């Protein structure tokens, strides 16, 4: 680090540096690093990384494709992407909320599946009018998810069961039990999935005619954004949010401050589960209309990446889920046009995660070297040992 001493901080440090912009620059740097790594990989396979990335953007509706099939346009692609984006946003918010309370909700997939299954069976297969069915689906999704979340929180608080292990166990239990019920009772013999739900209960309007195009309208897209904003204010300026964060930062200190830690743990896990439930209904009764038995949605695990990348900040997550969903949606098109494997997009996600996991370290390093560099540049005494000559720089910076 001492090489930064005594000169103006380098452009790189200045770019990443200052505290006020770090929330943006460090995630961007993580994304940049992972894209760079993937670009090298694509080069090694012998394809052009730039066209690969371009086709990713084209596939997800950000850039126009060279040609479209009938009834398709950049707008339909974008709406498709937003349809996948809605559950991703809910799921990531669920992970982030648990994170803020110092818990790790890795059971989002299971909570999603149970909520989706319950809503499918209790509402999706019944003859309710749309005006009743849709709110019921949302409500049911929230309740089912929050029940699972509450169970995990309760086990943690009452029996000291590690929440990671218990939620993973619940994931498998839900996966197999729901799979069992689908295969014995609700299976569609042709598709080997659960029977499709009635259109009235679906949270995505499909085939909405507009001009000569058929659009998909995710009904919960705007509410999802609102939930993110609400969550931001909840964490920022309510007593509950404050206590939740305090518990997450230091459980012991929170207890001394008179916060009921157990209650907070359970309630935050309940809310997190509820959000995961919303993700479940928008996924299984919106983006799809049926459930594939014995499979957990990969989305539930990707949401961990999204939440990490967005620094567990509700507003940051709005953007990070947009990025990851776009990567995911664009990968099919990339595969068909450029011939780069679809798996690359999950590799990008993994890489982003890897670099995001190091973000605390990056922040720490950048801060330290920036402090050092600034101190050396200004000639302040703070970072300098006494022995110094007039030029105000020194070799002693190693110690600081």
């Amino acid at each position: 680090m001492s090489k930064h001493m005594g000169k103006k901080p380098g452009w790189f440090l200045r770019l990443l540096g200052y505290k006020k912009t770090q929330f943006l620059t460090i995630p961007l740097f993580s994304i940049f690093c992972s894209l760079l790594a993937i670009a090298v990989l694509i080069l090694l396979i012998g394809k052009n990384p730039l066209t690969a990335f371009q086709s990713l953007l084209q596939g997800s509706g950000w850039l126009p494709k060279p040609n479209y099939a009938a009834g398709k346009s950049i707008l339909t692609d974008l709406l498709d992407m937003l349809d996948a984006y809605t559950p991703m946003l809910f799921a990531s918010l669920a992970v982030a909320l648990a994170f803020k309370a110092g818990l790790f909700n890795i059971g989002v997939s299971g909570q999603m599946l149970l909520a989706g299954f319950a809503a499918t069976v209790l509402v999706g297969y019944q003859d309710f009018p749309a005006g009743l069915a849709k709110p019921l689906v949302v409500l049911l999704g929230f309740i089912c998810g929050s029940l699972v979340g509450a169970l995990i929180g309760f086990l943690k608080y009452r029996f000291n069961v590690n929440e990671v292990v218990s939620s993973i166990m619940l994931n498998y239990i839900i996966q197999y039990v729901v799979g069992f019920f689908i295969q014995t009772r609700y299976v569609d013999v042709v598709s080997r999935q659960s029977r499709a739900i009635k259109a009235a209960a679906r949270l995505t309007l499909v085939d909405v005619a507009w001009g000569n195009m058929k659009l998909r309208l995710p009904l919960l897209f705007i509410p999802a954004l609102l939930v993110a904003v609400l969550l931001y204010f909840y964490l920022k300026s309510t007593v509950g949010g404050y206590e939740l964060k305090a518990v997450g930062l230091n459980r012991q200190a929170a207890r001394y401050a008179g916060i009921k830690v157990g209650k907070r743990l359970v309630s935050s896990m309940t809310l997190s589960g509820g959000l995961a439930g919303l993700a479940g209904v928008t996924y299984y009764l919106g983006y799809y209309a049926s459930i594939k038995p014995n499979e957990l949605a990969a989305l539930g695990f990707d949401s961990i990446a999204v939440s990490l990348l967005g620094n567990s900040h509700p507003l940051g997550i709005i953007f990070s889920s947009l990025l990851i969903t776009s990567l995911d949606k664009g990968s099919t098109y990339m595969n068909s046009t450029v011939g780069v494997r679809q798996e690359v997009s999950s590799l990008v996600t993994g890489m982003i995660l890897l670099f995001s996991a190091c973000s605390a370290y990056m922040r720490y390093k950048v801060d330290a070297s920036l402090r050092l560099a600034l101190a050396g540049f200004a000639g302040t005494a703070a970072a300098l040992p006494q022995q110094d000559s007039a030029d105000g720089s020194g070799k002693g910076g190693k110690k600081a």
Partner: protein
Amino acid sequence: MNTMIIDGLSYALPLLIIACGGIFSERSGVTNLALEGFLGFGAFTGGLFVALTSSWFANGSTVPMYLAFLFAMLGGGVYALLFALLCIKFRANQVIAGVVINILSVALTGFLTSQINSSVFGEASNKFQLGVSPRWTIPGVSQIPVLGAIFTKFYPFEILIVVLVIFLNYLLYKTRFGMHLRAAGDNPHAVDTAGISVVRVRFAAVVIAGMLAGLGGMCYAYSISTNFSPSIYFGAGYLAIAAMIFGNWKLMPTLAACLIFGLARSGAYQLVGYLKLSSNFTNLAMAIPYALTLLLLIFFSKSNRAPRALGEIYDKAKR
């Protein structure tokens, strides 16, 4: 009954060796949720080795199998270095780093398997075919009622695991290294005071964990499916963690936990067959080991004593 014990053991022993990896890592103070990723990557390396060298060996030779175990250990160990780097050097949150390593492992092995299959072997497949592992029966002893099943139709790797676990038990409790390792998990500052590098001990522990988990993954690849495919990620790593917590971070109780899982699983399968239920009920049977784990955790988590410095990033300045 015999089938239940035979299948139960072939399921429980790889689980035990993975859990041993977890014990080594956690006793040194590093929370290890990355076992799932380690075992997948280890099995991938072993599978890759078998696929690449399949033409070198005579048909039906068991040499590639033993070498595959070796390579799986190597692969798991190397991949574990990444995890060690993340959470020891780069001070990442250990829980997060573990999950990151798992997700990356799934993505990486999935991508590499398909890519290598298409560009080296010219076929579209996400699997590496492995040979069939031989199964041994010891004549005489295997005739003993009930207990004889232990010596009937067992996989060669089961012997390997038993030998290895005895050695690990010795390593953890009877050697200086083992003592340093356990101390690093309970009181790292004391280790440091004694002039031993906590970072180095933890690195070693995590790499050992990776090697053991890689071996366990390879065993599953041979015993469950005779190929390497993404289905290797069926949650054995997490089950192993549960077994370890249930076993209170000690080797012998963990063995008991693994046996319970293994026997519960094979028992449930047998029950479905015995009652002549439709194959759909195997789904329910599959859920039983997980439900049992959860239930046992509820009863045993309270009295558990985790290593004291578990999950803490070692900070010299705190001394």
